[in-house]
């Protein structure tokens, strides 16, 4: 074409004009820390695995999940999901049902028979783990992935620790537990049951272990000093729950009183109900608000007909099982104070659920250890005062939950690995928190949370069938898609679309985006319109 000078121009020639020079600040893609990930005691990359679940790639989701936690089907049932408590979506409508999705993935993995991959390079190091509970199993899993050989000793007849002997079946069906434990063992972990370690140093030496991780849990029920008649039937909660796993079920009678306010108290009371107690009563010193048990568990217990006597302490137990109860009041600090008012409560048995102590006998004679309040002190790298001996789970200072135990496992494994290699594990610096204020929630569709189905109350009162059901695929995917992907690009193409200067380059599915700073004028629309807050503006140095 014979174009008139200056009046008619060749298309697209403005690419010669690099408008990036106008910029005073530049956008940067960031990966911030979603509050769910931040809150997860097991350090799961929740947003990361939800991302795959959203797309229906459940195996990929599961694989991301198990990078941190080898027990998703267990977690998806019994974790108290602090992730959901801190989930940003809670400020939008209601938290993402992370736990439901986790369970779905865990169950799906069992159904599909997905296995863990084992590295082909062996480190040649051998680690002893004492205790096949959540912490021990998790450590074993992570150590194997890091190439070490692992042997677990457990004093009990079955692996699982508190997951088996502390948590009732109706919350965690045993086939699920067995399947997830088996998958870990299948990685080549050697498990020695019914094997008590009396002296850790001897065992390590004789077995040629390079390091040890102790996770024996806390299995000794705390006893309160309650004067009791010699014929009175006073049991402890851990014992009761433990014997549920044996041949002989505990004989609790028709009126069972449980003393305590934690989750264990609830578990026992609900178990008693299922064993046939007509009345299962919890006696607790303070009020419902002050109760350490999770409210949803209290709620479920109440639904099942468990009675709770608030602001009550047990002063005495007679031979016939009559309990003398003193009414309490809360002082201004919230502590219960006696009132001098008494009443009597008849019972066939009294179960004490007042907490647990750790059996530390295996540590006798180990130099360098520090033990405080009956628990082993560890350094930030989970190592005890004795080099090469690490500890975790309920036997070290921390919140006593399965998830925390699993988290200890990962942390300990990394540190043991570093220690074995003569180095020190340095955790990657934490990303900035993806706070709700950094999101642009406008973009998320309205979607109320889908609740898991619950077993009807009659069956909950008489059987040990699982109380809480799982989500089907559609619902699980829906729930996953409720995730707002806080702080992490989920490839919604907003930045690519909203840039008035086409200064965002789309790299293709799964590859995210890049800025073309030749043309980016630094208007910041991409930052404002990124739904999940995965872009930030930083001043340009001039």
């Amino acid at each position, binding site marked *: *074409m*014979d*174009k*008139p*000078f*200056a*009046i*008619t*121009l060749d*298309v697209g020639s403005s690419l010669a004009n690099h408008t990036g020079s106008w910029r005073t600040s530049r956008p940067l893609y960031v990966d911030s820390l979603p509050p769910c990930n931040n809150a997860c005691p097991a350090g799961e990359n929740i947003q990361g695995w939800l991302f795959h679940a959203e797309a229906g790639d459940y195996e990929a989701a599961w694989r991301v999940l198990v990078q941190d936690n080898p027990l998703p089907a267990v977690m998806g049932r019994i974790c108290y999901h602090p992730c959901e408590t801190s989930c940003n979506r809670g400020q939008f409508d209601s938290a993402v049902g992370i736990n439901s999705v986790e369970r779905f993935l865990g169950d799906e993995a069992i159904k599909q028979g997905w296995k863990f991959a084992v590295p082909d390079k062996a480190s040649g190091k051998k680690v002893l783990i004492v205790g096949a509970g959540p912490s021990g199993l998790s450590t074993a899993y992570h150590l194997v992935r890091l190439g070490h050989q692992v042997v677990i000793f457990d004093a009990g007849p079955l692996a699982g620790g508190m997951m088996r002997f502390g948590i009732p079946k109706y919350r965690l069906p045993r086939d699920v537990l067995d399947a997830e434990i088996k998958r870990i063992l299948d990685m080549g972990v050697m498990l020695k049951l019914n094997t008590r370690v009396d002296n850790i140093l001897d065992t390590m030496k004789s077995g040629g272990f390079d390091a040890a991780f102790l996770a024996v849990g806390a299995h000794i029920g705390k006893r309160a000093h309650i004067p009791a008649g010699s014929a009175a039937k006073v049991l402890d909660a851990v014992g009761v729950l433990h014997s549920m796993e044996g041949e002989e079920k505990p004989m609790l009678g028709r009126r069972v009183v449980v003393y305590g306010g934690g989750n264990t108290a609830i578990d026992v009371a609900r178990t008693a109900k299922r064993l046939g107690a007509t009345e299962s009563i919890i006696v607790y010193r303070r009020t419902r608000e002050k109760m350490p048990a999770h409210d949803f568990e209290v709620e479920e217990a109440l639904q099942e007909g468990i009675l709770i006597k608030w602001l009550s302490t047990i002063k005495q137990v007679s031979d016939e099982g009559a309990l003398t109860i003193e009414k309490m009041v809360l002082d201004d600090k919230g502590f219960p104070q006696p009132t001098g008012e008494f009443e009597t409560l008849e019972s066939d048995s009294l179960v004490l659920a007042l907490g647990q102590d750790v059996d530390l006998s295996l540590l006798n004679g180990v130099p360098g250890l520090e033990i405080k309040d009956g628990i082993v002190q560890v350094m930030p790298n989970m190592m005890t005062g004795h080099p090469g001996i690490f500890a975790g789970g309920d036997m070290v200072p921390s919140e006593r939950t399965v998830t925390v135990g699993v988290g200890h496992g990962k942390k300990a494994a990394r540190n043991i690995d570093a220690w074995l290699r003569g180095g020190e594990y340095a955790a990657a610096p934490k990303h900035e928190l993806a706070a709700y204020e950094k999101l642009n929630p406008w973009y998320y569709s309205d979607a109320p949370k889908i609740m898991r189905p619950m077993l009807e109350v009659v069956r909950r009162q008489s059987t040990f069938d699982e109380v809480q059901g799982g989500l089907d695929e559609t619902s699980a995917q829906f729930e996953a898609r409720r995730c707002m992907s806080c702080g992490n690009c989920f490839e919604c193409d907003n930045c690519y679309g909203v840039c008035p200067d086409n200064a965002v380059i789309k790299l293709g599915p799964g590859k995210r985006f890049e800025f073309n700073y030749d043309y980016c004028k630094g208007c910041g629309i991409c930052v404002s319109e990124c739904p999940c807050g995965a872009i930030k503006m930083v001043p340009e140095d001039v």
Partner: protein
Amino acid sequence: MLKQCEGSHAVASAVAMCRPEVICAYPISPQTHIVEGLGEMVKSGNLAPCEFINVESEFAAMSVAIGASAAGARSYTATASQGLLFMVEAVYNASGLGLPIVMTVANRAIGAPINIWNDHSDSMSQRDCGWIQLFAENNQEALDLHIQAFRLGEELSLPVMVCMDGFILTHAYERVDIPAQEQVDSYLPAFVPRQILDPAEPVSIGAMVGPEAFTEVRYLAHAKQMQALELIPQHAAEFKQIFGRDSGGLVRPYRCEDAETIVVALGSVLGTLKDTIDEMRDAGHKVGVLGIVSFRPFPLLAVREVLKNARRVVVLEKSLAVGIGGIVATDVRMALSGLHLHGYTVIAGLGGRAITKASLHKMLERAVKDELEHLTFLDLDHNLINRHLEREKQKRRSGPMAENMLRDVGVVAARIA
């Protein structure tokens, strides 16, 4: 084919034979008959393929033509007077963009006072708009110039205005030779646009140009018109070969060879002038007439060539540059740079006032004696003027001038169209 017909009809036939593809029009006297004719041809299917668009203003008419031409269609419109002024912005734009639109201007005065009759104020107001402006002396030439206009415009990628006197030509029945379609086809090739809006080869037309290149753009516009100075005579020669008659060209001298006095003029008045000159020649005056066909580009050299041996030049024009006098005269003077001859400007025929041989005689007789004022208004009614000036002197608010003067003439509101 010889035919006795109205000027507008002759032009419409010529335009139709040029196979225009888009015609857009908005009515204004005295252009109406041309586009009405074309509209009927399109509607009846006699002119096809062609889009005839009834637009809502002249501004739109020119704009539609701009769009159509930029999209590669041979485009035509016609207007006059107020209509031309209403489209001015687009008129400049069409030439700036280099779009070879052809437009007939049925020359008419500009108001206020509103006046539908002929003079050249309208096209003269656009002398700097970048269009080529050709003036027809009679209906035959009006017809011929349209055929040449498409050829010239498209070859140069410039729009062309064919100016013909309103009513005097547009509404006059004369015998014209209407060419055969084959003749037109052999003279005028199909339109091959220089630039075109086409998805197959996208371009951006109409960029904003700053000081860094604006002068160059304007220079090139000028250079193109200079190119036209060469093409116009060539085209006229070719035209003669095919059609067998002299039409177009840059200038048309009549009895100028030995003339001492030469009258320069454009358009239909040339006919009257030639008759007058013949009579004056008979009376022994060495006078001649120089008709300018191409007013833009202005043929400085050709004009100079004709005038250089004369003693005086009288520019007779149907337009007034208020505050100075002649428009054509100024350009003619440019052509005479360095030559010493007497120059007179005669403003005549404004708003349709008839230019009679008698008046021309009177004026020329004074001219040959160099008794003419440098600026003369032909047939100006001095009584009328004086009375008004007197009135104004007495009373500041003397009322609308035109109305007052008409009252003096005694025909208030009688001639307002």
